[in-house]
């Protein structure tokens, strides 16, 4: 069957008419398949939800038990029949529980990658390429300017700064799901064994990662009295990016503002946000990884969604690969 009739964009999200379900819908729907737990992809209020166990757990942690009416855990690699079509989940390497969703009917297979990355991440399963007719790729960092450096070098920058400014608290802004835990795990791998202080918004997710066997070491809440603010001197503190501007940040002595994000590659972005130490660590593919993934999977068509669609579509044209932008709305690339 024609792929355009198997899956197509609607205001509520990507829709599969034959199966009667949406993938990562942005409004409440009857049947939803969810790729991963980030808030712009996993919303509360759907009736039936199919997702990996981790993604369901994360939604429960974020939205409470009533986040949907009924849920079903998808086992990675297993095929689920929904009406006339089959769906299967495959690791996407983005955050804990993240999956690509392959949708298949009458010999046509479309893979919705969701958000994905190709680098090693100690906190989640690695991306697995799935052969398909249409590969739907994200394009958050879909410009040739984006080349994410080696994580270890970025962590080394932080460790150098801790030595240089031992009197200052080092506050890292990092997305509460995935990025924060990955930074902690990378710091531990680099041999950093001091306590790491976290903002309250990260606590339950960090606990959950620990439950799933991802060791984060000595984690403590960053909630001490103003009187002993000096105890944060030289400490690593992690909070959601928005916490910088918040009164929360005032409890720390002369903080070094750090932001862990792929956007930090762009100096002006860092400067505008008042970031002093950018850590270029991303949970998305950079340009090279996006293009290499497309070459590796070698689909007949590429559909490009959220991000810089035009550049990736142009690249596909130059490579002789049929490609078009999907124009899905409601996904936020700023939280990265």
């Amino acid at each position: 069957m024609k792929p355009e009739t198997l899956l197509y964009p609607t205001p509520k999200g990507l829709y599969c008419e034959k199966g009667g379900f949406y993938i990562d819908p942005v409004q409440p729907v009857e049947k939803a398949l969810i790729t991963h737990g980030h808030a712009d992809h996993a919303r509360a209020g759907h009736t039936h939800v199919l997702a990996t166990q981790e993604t369901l757990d994360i939604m429960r942690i974020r939205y409470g038990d009533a986040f949907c009416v009924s849920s079903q855990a998808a086992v990675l690699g297993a095929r689920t029949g929904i009406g006339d079509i089959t769906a299967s989940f495959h690791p996407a390497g983005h955050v804990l529980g993240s999956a690509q969703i392959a949708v298949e009917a009458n010999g046509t297979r479309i893979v919705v990658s969701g958000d994905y990355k190709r680098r090693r991440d100690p906190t989640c399963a690695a991306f697995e390429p799935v052969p398909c007719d249409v590969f739907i790729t994200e394009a958050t960092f879909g410009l040739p300017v984006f080349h994410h450096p080696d994580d270890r070098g970025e962590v080394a920058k932080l460790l150098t700064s801790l030595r240089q400014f031992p009197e200052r608290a080092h506050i890292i802004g990092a997305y509460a799901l995935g990025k924060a835990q990955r930074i902690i795990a990378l710091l531990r791998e680099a041999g950093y064994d001091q306590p790491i202080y976290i903002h309250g918004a990260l606590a339950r997710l960090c606990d959950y990662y620990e439950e799933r066997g991802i060791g984060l070491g000595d984690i403590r809440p960053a909630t001490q009295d103003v009187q002993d603010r000096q105890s944060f001197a030289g400490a690593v503190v992690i909070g959601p990016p928005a916490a910088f501007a918040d009164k929360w940040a005032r409890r720390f002595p002369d903080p070094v503002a750090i932001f862990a994000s792929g956007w930090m590659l762009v100096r002006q972005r860092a400067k505008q946000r008042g970031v002093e130490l950018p850590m270029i660590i991303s949970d998305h593919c950079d340009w090279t990884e996006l293009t290499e993934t497309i070459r590796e999977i070698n689909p007949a068509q590429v559909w490009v969604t959220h991000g810089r669609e035009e550049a990736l579509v142009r690249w596909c044209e130059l490579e002789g690969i049929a490609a078009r932008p999907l124009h899905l709305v409601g996904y936020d690339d700023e939280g990265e």
Partner: protein
Amino acid sequence: MRAFAELLDRLVLTPQRNAKIKLMADYFRNAPDPDRGYALAAIAGTLTLKTVKPNVLRQLVLERLDEVLFRYSYDYIGDLAETISLVWERQAGGETAQQDLSLGAVMHQLEMAGRANVHGLVRSLLDQLEGSSRFALLKLITGGLRIGVSARLVKQALADMGNVDITEIETLWHGLSPPYTALFRWLDGKSDKPQLDMPAVFHAVMLATPVADNDLATLDPKAFAAEWKWDGIRVQLANLAGTRRLYSRSGDDISGAFPDILEAADFEGIIDGELLVGGTMRTNRATRTFSDLQQRLNRKTVTRRMLEEYPAFIRGYDLLFCGRRDIRQESFLTRRAELSALIDKAAPSRFDLSPLVPFSSWEELDRLRADPPDPVIEGIMLKRLDSPYTAGRSKGPWFKWKREPYNVDAVLMYAQRGHGKRSSYYSDFTFGVWTQSDGKDVLVPVGKAYFGFTDAELEVLDRYVRNNTVERFGPVRAIRAEPDHGFVVEVAFEGINFSTRHKSGVAMRFPRISRLRTDKLPRDADRLETLLAMIGQPGADMVEIREPI
């Protein structure tokens, strides 16, 4: 190259002065020669390198990247050097440098390269370097780092690194050149201070301390001379052994912008004085405002028209060298007599002598200070008659006694978050006063301040901003400011500059928020006309020409 690139990256994003100094001092301590010397030269702006045109760089990129993709990228990033450093893809199968290239080696290759092979050299260097290092290289070869570090700041970092006084660095500076190997050897403690071949051309200037509350009570007025403190910039003019130079007080060479003065300096010696524009007292013409002087500042060269419209001159304060004789150990009175004799013979339109202010008591001087005879005076200088000329700022021999600041009540209009300790506070404020526009009263911004208030007052201001934001522009918040609803602050400032970049046509000099006027409504705040009247509009005719208000 990597260490230098990392230093640049950090400096670009570090707002605090002390942290910048620390980053640079650490780099100088750890980097080898001659890398650190070239880095110093790049930061201080003393590097002389043939620059590469942006178009050449663009061609290099397009050899490897589709033009459309390059355009998308450049549109997104906005800076050519940064875009190229980011999109550069090493040639497939091309050699990857196993080791980091040293900054010194890169500089050497660039210096050796002829016009014909610069193209190929840049391509090969870009291929060998990592992302941040590519950015650093591109900034070096396109000229101008623009990283928010002044020459003064980098000299302070050198002083910190070697644990010496900054005046020692300033004195040596113009006798040395990249890659500054002898300087670093001395700062490392591995050799004596470098000896200059010729008499040092710049000598660290003598500075005054402000008069504090009870300072004068214990001092004898008869031991001091008083002179007006003119509102220009402090300079040192040197003409020694055939070399003429004009320096700012921190030792920046500003000769290029003042050929009129250099040409007229046909006497040998070193003068300390105030650089001003307008006419000298010897030609009976008025001294013009700082605003006019600014037309001549921060320029590498100057047009004939500028020279005619804004003639510069020096009002002499002191003499350091009389001919080739170092007279800094002589008393102020002796030096001044020598200075007076020298200026008598110098060009009348370019040099005059700062007049002394006769007085018999501190009270009398205080009255004179409150009502100076010329609008371009910003206070009084007190100098001990017996004081030698010593580098730096030590308390006792020289005092500055500034005129009281001007005060107006202004209304907060915009606020921006601060940095570091203040990153969670709205602590940078733009404020305005009322003026008529199209028959209506509107607020126009007249200045920006981020200090003057106490920590407790900052809490109040921050809370007001958060609760009264009407619009956001990126990091800036527009604050509610209506005749009956808004926040009035008392602003103290030293003067105003006329500026076409500001809607009001004026910008305050050194404004600070001196008091929160929670007792006042915005409608009670001051008007632009009041502000202008306060300044007494010195040289009103000249103001009119450039800035219709």
